[in-house]
């Protein structure tokens, strides 16, 4: 059976590479992009089942990346991560079509649950 493929877009390298390993330990294939631009680029060649996207990044912000993903891959579920987001940020993301909004620090089991949930619904 094919593994679930996740694209992680987050500029905090130490955070995201550990997250990648933790997901792989749970039999989820993850690839890392360290900014929005790289994320959008990786999307075309990697075609993940789901994207995990940080809200605050230098360059393209999470919101802008989310908009572009919605535009080009309207079916692709996106889970947002935020370090210090307000309720308003959460609402904006959900309005723009994100399927979930998680606050850091992140509970890995919750994230895995969201990933499963997002993909079973959308795919």
């Amino acid at each position, binding site marked *: 059976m094919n593994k679930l493929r996740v694209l992680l877009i987050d500029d905090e390298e*130490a*955070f995201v590479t*550990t997250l990648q390993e*933790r997901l792989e330990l749970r039999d989820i294939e993850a690839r890392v992009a360290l900014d929005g631009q790289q994320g959008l680029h990786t999307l075309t060649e990697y075609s993940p089942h789901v994207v995990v996207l940080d809200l605050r990044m230098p360059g393209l912000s999470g919101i802008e990346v989310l908009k572009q993903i919605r535009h080009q891959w309207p079916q692709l579920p996106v889970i947002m991560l935020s*370090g*210090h987001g307000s309720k308003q940020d959460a609402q904006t993301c959900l309005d723009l079509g994100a399927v979930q909004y998680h606050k850091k*620090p*992140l509970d*890995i089991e919750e994230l895995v649950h969201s990933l499963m949930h997002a993909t079973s619904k959308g795919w």
Partner: protein
Amino acid sequence: MLTILVVDDEVAFADVLSQRLRTRGMQVFTAYNGHQALDLMQAKHPDIVLLDITMPGPDGLTILQTLKEQNPITQVILLTADSTISTAVTGMKLGASDYLMKPASFDNILQAIHEAEQKRLNTLSRKRMAETAKLAALGELGKGVAHEINNPVHIMVNEVGWIEDLLEEIPMNADTDKQIRNSLQLIREQATRCKTITSKLLTLRPATNPVSDLHTLPTIWDKAVHLRANRISKTKVTLHQSWSQEFQHPLWSSTSWMQILGNLLDNALDALGLAGGDITITGQRQGNDAIVTIADTGHGIEAHLLTRIFEPFFSTKDVGQGIGLGLAICHGFVESMGGDISVRSTLGQGSVFTIKMPLPVNLIQKNTGVKILTPAKEDANE
């Protein structure tokens, strides 16, 4: 109501002037020498002081200097009998807003009071603007610090999770495994503490739109209560409120008052604990000040701690329970708006926090405080 302090060693003059000002609806205190003047200034915080320069004891200029150091917003009108212009000039340099030669007509005195009051209100609103700007800068700083701390904290928590994952994979002696897990749990708890502090710092952001930020104080209180509805529903707390009409005008900064009332409410809820009790908020007008009190029937605060509770990072709650920023934030916001906050407490009976704050300037101008100063028909000379 405008509060005036008349200072003159000529008792008859001082008494007559005080009485006539009272008939114009002002609250007037009278001092016959410098010492009395200094005491009354401390106790009554007059808006405007009518000050004779030549007096036994501390003279007018000395009092002026002390007063301006203590409360730069209070306006001082100098009364001088001697015609030496140099004394008056010195007085103006020391911050007096006007000077009148004796004998001065009552009309002239009223006119000077009127102008001084305008000046005081302008100074007050300029000061508030400057403080708002300071607060905005502080908010930005807090936000920056919060973000800079949050990222490493998230990384730490994530790494803790990773180590826990690895523990699942690698078989280990049960004792060692337990010790490592305990340490990891501690790290996680401490990270959560950091997170609590940074989220407090993030709430210090100032209002983005100062106009839409203005609401009535009862609305702001209701919102603060609503945000804590979950917590309140779990305790046996009864909330009471009473407001005079000044508080029903939408002239109160929501951002600042949400911080002040929210933190005081949290504090009251902490004091009541699960046992519950009553929390009562009242708003009344006292002269040109708003007096807001929040009383709880909780465990009270020990006397020797009362002076310290507004210090940042001072907390009487158990480590990890309170971070000691709530009341410090309250204090900061109240001071930045030109007010002060105090507390009275009886162990086992509860605490009352009292905020005294200048009324919003628009409210004062809407009211009679200034209007009574329109030029008088009376033409008597003192």
